[in-house]
């Protein structure tokens, strides 16, 4: 009588094969899990998925929309990944995006006649400074008194969103806007140029450029090296004479500034005005994207497109009466399976055949 038992054995080095396979399997399992829910609600999952796929990646319009959603995801993910690299858990990208959008909007709303070559750089700089300062607000207590940045960055999100709401419902509301919570439209000079005549805007190049820059910083730069050391062991960094406080302030500021850039790109490239609800939670999804990409800037670009597609797919099925939350559910499920699957990159599953006589003892 033989019996099989399982045993998990720790691997000495993480398996490189698993690093690639696990995200793939995780996506499949997430689709399966989502499928179960769809069946339970009386839908045919295959129909729903194919609709999602076709509408997000199967047409020129779908692809465009996917990219439109992917750009702010790319920017905010790159932003948080910089902070995550130093183990600063900045989950306030959403708020930093809003503050960036707000500050960027201020320029065209107060000085609408500025020429584009002053307007656009001005908006970009204002957006980045506002996002950066919003993040810096949490970095200062973190650096001085070790106040947990997870709580403070998260809470400031609500403040930022409500602040923008206050502006668009109040002082910045367009007097000719039939009482909608939107600001006046920006002048043409305040709009980021599009790719051809599509809705994909120049923000894409911000993201591509930043990804390359961050990849170089992480891998080859002196500053990237010190961020890496501080993130890995703060005590070792202090011992090596690195200035930890200054780096906390700097990294948090830059992390927020990149999210602020995302906010600027949204109002300038897509919406053309400031309004209520400019982000459907890009700043939160960014955390998932950055994590799934293992903080690799190039991977962030790819995963952002995938998550952009999921979002567009979600909107697409909404037309058919299926809640768009399908997309959110799939996002969550993918993260869940990837995190769970990480055990296989670090452990090896072993099958052990036990002989009957040994068992009986």
């Amino acid at each position: 009588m033989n019996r099989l038992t399982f045993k998990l054995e720790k691997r000495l080095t993480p398996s490189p094969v698993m690093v690639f396979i696990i995200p793939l399997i995780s996506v499949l399992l997430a689709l399966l899990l989502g499928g179960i829910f769809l069946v339970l609600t009386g839908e045919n999952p295959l129909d729903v998925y194919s609709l999602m796929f076709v509408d997000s990646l199967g047409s020129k319009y779908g692809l465009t929309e996917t990219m439109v959603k992917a750009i702010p995801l790319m920017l905010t993910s790159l932003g948080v990944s910089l902070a995550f690299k130093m183990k600063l858990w900045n989950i306030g990208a959403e708020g930093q995006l809003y503050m960036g959008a707000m500050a960027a909007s201020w320029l065209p709303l107060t000085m609408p006649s500025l020429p584009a070559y002053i307007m656009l750089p001005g908006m970009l700089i204002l957006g980045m400074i506002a996002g950066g300062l919003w993040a810096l607000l949490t970095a200062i207590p973190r650096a001085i008194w070790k106040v947990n940045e997870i709580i403070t960055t998260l809470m400031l999100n609500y403040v930022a969103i409500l602040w923008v709401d206050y502006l668009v419902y109040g002082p910045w509301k367009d007097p000719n806007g039939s009482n909608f919570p939107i600001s006046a439209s920006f002048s043409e000079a305040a709009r980021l140029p599009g790719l051809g005549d599509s809705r994909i805007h120049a923000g894409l190049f911000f993201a591509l450029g930043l990804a390359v820059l961050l990849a170089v910083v992480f891998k080859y730069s002196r500053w990237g090296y010190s961020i890496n050391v501080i993130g890995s062991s703060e005590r070792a960094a202090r011992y090596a004479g690195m200035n930890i406080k200054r780096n906390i302030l700097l990294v948090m500021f830059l992390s927020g500034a990149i999210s602020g850039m995302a906010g600027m790109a949204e109002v300038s490239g897509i919406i053309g005005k400031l309004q209520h609800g400019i982000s459907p939670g890009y700043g939160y999804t960014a955390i998932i994207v950055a994590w799934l990409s293992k903080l690799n800037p190039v991977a962030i670009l790819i995963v952002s497109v995938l998550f952009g597609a999921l979002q567009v797919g979600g909107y697409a099925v909404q037309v058919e009466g299926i809640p768009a939350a399908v997309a959110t559910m799939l996002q969550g499920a993918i993260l869940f399976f990837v995190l769970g699957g990480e055990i296989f990159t670090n452990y090896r599953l072993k099958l052990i055949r036990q002989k009957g006589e040994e068992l009986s003892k």
Partner: protein
Amino acid sequence: MNQSLIQLRGIVKKFPGVLANDNVDLDINPGEIHAILGENGSGKSTLMSVLAGLYKPDAGKILVNGAEEKFRSPRDAIVCGIGMVHQHFKLVEPFTVAENITLGEKGNSFFLSNKELKARINELGKKYGLEINLNAKVWQLSVGEKQRVEIVRMLYRGSKVLILDEPTAVLTPQEANELFENLRRMASAGCAVVLITHKLNEVEAIADRVTVLRQGKFAGVLERDQINAKEMVRLMVGRAVASKYDRDSSPVGGVVLQLDKVNALNDMGLPCLREMSLCVREGEILGLAGVSGNGQREMAEVISGLRRVESGKILLNDRNISNLSPRTIIDLGVAYVPEDRLGMGLVPDLNALENLILKKYHQPEFSGRWLLKSQAVERNAETLVKQYQVKISSLHQSVKVLSGGNLQKLLLAREISSSPKLMVVIYPARGLDIGATESVHKLLLELKKRKTAILLISEDLDEIFKLADRVGVVFDGKLTGDFPVEQADLEEVGLLMTGSCSARERVNENEPAHI
């Protein structure tokens, strides 16, 4: 035939990448003190953890009184009368001694009247000479007393076999002697005492029998009359080891480091250095002896700029360096090998290339204004790893997988290669095996030859007497003794470590080390 109390047969225990125990046999008899001797990583702690029910062996049998037992948890082992006292005590600090002893006991002990309980413990204490104050809170006790509480706890639970994991590592020589007397009494009362150690003098002093392990395998067993240092080393290392080093006897130079009435606070904001004054000269090793926790770590941190100096001066070649930034002090030529190799001295998740430039990455040698010079970084690591004989499979592998000895070599390689004026090292050989200890010591002596001033902080008196030119003693944040090594006396230094003002005033040996 006289049957052994405990028999281990063919114990195999695997960890990823390591065979910690490879088919090990062990017999333990009642009434004996049995030493388990081996270098670090030879598998002695693993073997004892198997016996104490902490690890499940991958193969092999445990026989207690001839009957096979399978331990699923330490509780099973305790039921069989096997108790282990770990190196790091498992006591609840805010609880009283009596509460700690009865903690985790099932049954009616919770309701047992205080009187009855105390009577039982006192009886045990009297039997073995282990006296403790049952009403004291554990945090008030000295290390030696805490250890006694652990031992009484095991005896109280009916342990017939008492396993002690490196029990003297935290004790002063006096406390260690007292412990040995107690163990002797227990053995003569019929208990079996198993002592895990890598110190030969302890085995010579107390063991009735010694089992030697080498690289996870059984290397040999020696009876009382066969025990001698030479034979044990041969079994442990597989070769002979130098017991003395050739020391460079050229005269020392001028004062490099001077501490002048330095006061500093510990992490809890309490004074840890009180008017500390000392000096180290060029080409001199000052060995600072002391039981850890008397301000040694804080002193090293104060010198390297990691802790604030509240008052007093620290002079490096006559320049006041107190409260300068760590980086400035590094750049002035102060190297520091901290006790916490992995996590402070080295970054666990980074590879050897990155770790070897930790303190110099910002200098023109390794980086420009923005980018690191990857070729220089690579060359640096290759040279150092080769020169210092660090055993490492890849320079790109994170260093956390390295053994203690190789970590220390890597750390020393980096610190020594900066050609420091002053080197501060704390417990450089702690946890290292004989071979690695020897190479670490030789590196320090080599550095001395190159005229570096070395402040060697250690608890290991052997190490200090082997290496130092001068011996200092630190107690409660003060320098309580300072002798040239030729005039230093082991006994006297040991007594000063416990805080007695002078060797002539014999302290009551039962008094706790910390006042």
